[in-house]
């Protein structure tokens, strides 16, 4: 097997499995696949999994940007687009272009600087894993569900229930738009210029690119046999081969090995350096290293903290209930923690079995755009379910045991009596209390045989069952988010009745 084929093989596996992780709404594969998100570069960095980060850095130092070509889902996505374009427009060739060094470093400085200043949204927008996560969540997943529904309709017609219908709805218009824009921009760039995105904008690409300048194994020219025919240059999707000067810009080489198979004279090889070449390269590396660390330092100092998230909470357009605080997912510790660590990859959003996690608009403020929040329009947070914190790759949602989850207070119940069916119509209801597993909402005697909700917010966990099911418009009961999650007070168990009746009673 040629190196290129090995690369394609691994890339297809990584890409398919990670995509499956995002689109598999039935969560059949999640238990096995979620680690694929945890090994991504930026998530590992943010969650403090430095072993993973070190692994990628060492691998890059050895073999170049194999992360970019075989693991990064956004990179592989671009390769797929380029491959498709080649099928339709085989004549279109690429050629060597100069590195856009200023742009690359400016983006990196802004990303790192804003992150250090407490704004995660720029990193979220440009982190390749998170950007791909949003594409998969908002574009591929609904398509996959639609496909499922076609199958379900066909199978159910013949009374086979292997497939079941799922409800498809837009989770968030803004996130859908951002995902769509990312898809179109990066897709178009990939179709026209190959890996341009990775080599101009992507912050991971810039970091690994400059690390890979030091790598041991590289694509190297054999100056004797090379006749500068330009085939490799045309095949290079990173536009980093200058066949005329027989040089490769290693900061942009994504280790795809396409050039190796293209070269008819075997003048290109992937190998350790020859002694004499080492000297000029070393100079290069030193320079770039200096620039890189210089940039980091400048960013850390220069980006003013005034850019920090300002609370721009706007009331949502639906003015039925006016929540002062959004509900952050279980494990998020606090809104602050979420704002600092979440890159909005939306893996939790696509994995939530109750489908209550949705990307925020301005609920957390401008800096919290696209961060997950709990929304009880279509469901509520299930007891015993810790899916979101299990899959979170950045530790924005820290792992919870079932017990911790079930006593965690994410929000507190609020009852508006004047909206309640029992108060207004004087008929029975109790839907809220029915759904309340702690009985923070219980039904107490009202007029005649009627019962009316009564709340005890201290034992409320904020699951949203009551808010979801309340039949009144506007809602008579809702959950107000806790900006800092707390522990719910334990509820008092009912008195056990040991003796069962020994007669029927009629």
């Amino acid at each position, binding site marked *: 097997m040629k190196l290129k084929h090995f690369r394609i093989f691994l890339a297809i596996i990584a890409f398919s499995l990670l995509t499956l992780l995002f689109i598999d709404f*039935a969560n059949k594969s999640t238990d096995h696949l979620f680690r694929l998100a945890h090994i991504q570069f930026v998530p590992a960095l943010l969650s403090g999994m430095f072993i993973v980060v070190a692994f990628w850095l060492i691998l890059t130092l050895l073999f170049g940007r194999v992360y970019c070509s075989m693991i990064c889902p956004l990179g592989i996505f671009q390769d797929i687009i380029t491959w498709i374009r080649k099928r339709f427009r085989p004549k279109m060739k690429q050629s060597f272009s100069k590195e856009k060094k200023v742009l690359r470093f400016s983006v990196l400085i802004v990303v790192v600087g804003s992150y250090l200043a407490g704004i995660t949204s720029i990193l979220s927008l440009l982190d390749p894993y998170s950007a791909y996560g949003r594409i998969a969540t908002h574009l591929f997943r609904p398509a996959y569900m639609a496909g499922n529904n076609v199958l379900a*309709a066909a199978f*159910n017609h013949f*009374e086979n*229930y292997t497939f*079941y*219908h*799922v*409800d498809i709805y837009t989770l968030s218009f803004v996130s859908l738009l951002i995902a769509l824009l990312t898809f179109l921009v990066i897709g178009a760039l990939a179709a026209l210029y190959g890996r341009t995105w990775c080599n101009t904008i992507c912050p991971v690409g810039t970091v690994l690119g400059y690390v890979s300048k030091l790598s041991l194994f590289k694509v190297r020219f054999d100056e004797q046999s090379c006749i500068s025919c330009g085939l490799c240059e045309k095949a290079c999707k990173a536009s980093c081969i200058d066949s005329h000067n027989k040089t490769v810009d290693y900061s942009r080489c994504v280790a795809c090995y396409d050039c190796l198979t293209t070269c008819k004279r075997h003048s290109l090889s992937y190998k350790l350096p020859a002694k004499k070449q080492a000297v000029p390269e070393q100079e290069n590396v030193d320079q770039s290293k200096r620039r890189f660390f210089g940039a980091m330092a400048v960013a850390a100092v220069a980006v003013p903290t005034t850019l920090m998230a300002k609370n721009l909470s706007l009331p949502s357009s639906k003015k039925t209930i006016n929540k002062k605080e959004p509900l952050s997912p279980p494990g998020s510790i606090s809104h602050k923690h979420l704002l600092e660590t979440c890159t909005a990859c939306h893996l939790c959003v696509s994995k939530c*079995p*109750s489908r209550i996690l949705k990307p925020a608009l301005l609920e957390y403020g401008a800096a919290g755009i696209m961060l997950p929040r709990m929304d009880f329009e279509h*469901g509520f947070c*299930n*007891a*015993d*379910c810790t899916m979101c914190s299990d899959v979170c790759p950045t530790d924005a949602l820290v792992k919870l045991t079932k017990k911790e989850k079930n006593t965690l207070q994410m929000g507190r119940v609020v009852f508006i009596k004047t909206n309640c*069916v029992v108060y207004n*119509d004087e*008929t*029975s*209801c*109790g*839907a809220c*209390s*029915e*759904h*309340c*597993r*702690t*009985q923070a909402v*219980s*039904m107490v005697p009202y007029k005649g*045989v009627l*019962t009316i909700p009564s709340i005890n917010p201290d034992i409320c966990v904020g699951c949203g069952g009551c808010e979801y*099911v309340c*039949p*009144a418009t506007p809602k008579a009961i809702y959950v107000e988010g806790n900006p800092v999650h707390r522990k719910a007070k334990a*509820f008092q*168990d*009912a*008195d*056990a*009745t040991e003796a*069962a*009746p020994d*007669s*029927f*009673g*009629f």
Partner: protein
Amino acid sequence: MTSLASGSHGLVERKNYDHMKRRDFLKAAALTGIASTIKLSGGMDIMAQKVAKPGRRSCDMVAIMGGEPAEMFRRAIIELGGMGKFVKKGQKVTVKPNIGWDKTPDLAANTNPALVAEIVRECLKAGAREVIVFDHTCDDWRKCYANSGIEAGAKAAGAKVVPGNEESYYREISLPKGVRLKQAKVHTAILDSDVWINVPILKNHGGPKMTIAMKNHMGIVWDRGYFHRNDLQQCIADICTLPKPAVLNVVDAYRVMKSNGPQGRSENDVVKAKAMFLSRDIIAVDTAATKFFNQIERMPLESVTHIAKGQALKLGTMNIDKLNIKRINL
């Protein structure tokens, strides 16, 4: 011939589990056999009843206590004339338990899985072509189906377990007799079945006070919110006027939820009452079950207003003293 064979097979199987008198059993088994033979020869339901009566006057309701769920059902169904009285050969049967909550069987939020499985087996034994089990759950349906033990139990017994989570599984029907509820979207498993059996569990309920056989109908409809917005108690009575009522109501009171219902918080809410009530008459069976419940926790029959509203719609009688009730203490 077929029914004779199945009858003797039943004998071997039942001898091990039941403590009933051998003579009683043989009588009942013979009658069941006759009943189904008549069906085979094209006999009608009325004829089957006629045949059943001389041997033992067929009763209106069976109240049984002191046994395990499957055991109690096997005994009670014989008293009612055998499953063949309700399910005919070749029919498509739907069994509708309460699978509303993501809770394990010991917490008594859902119908006992052993009971559901036994009903499925009896239906198939009576010659049902297919038995379907479903519920429109409150919690995540996949979790409810799994953790209630009902999916596994029903499948092992030979049933097909179908989802109820999406609107497309429901079809609108009109309810001309309904007072507040004039039409409702009802699950196709009910509408497209030949007969269906209603298998609720006995629980208290914060809103309508009790959830028994009538309230279990909220699991066959799509839009429950409408019920809550438009006089819940009346809507519960209204949905029970659907053109295809359950042929049999089996109230599971093996474990009874006495408090914090219908979901419950802990095992302290549960009383192991080991009882079961069976009747065609949904009003009578809910009345009986409420009276039984009243011995555990105070629950005046008048406070469960959907039962009286159901009686007003001529769905059955609350005057159960007038009924022929077979009471069995195992």
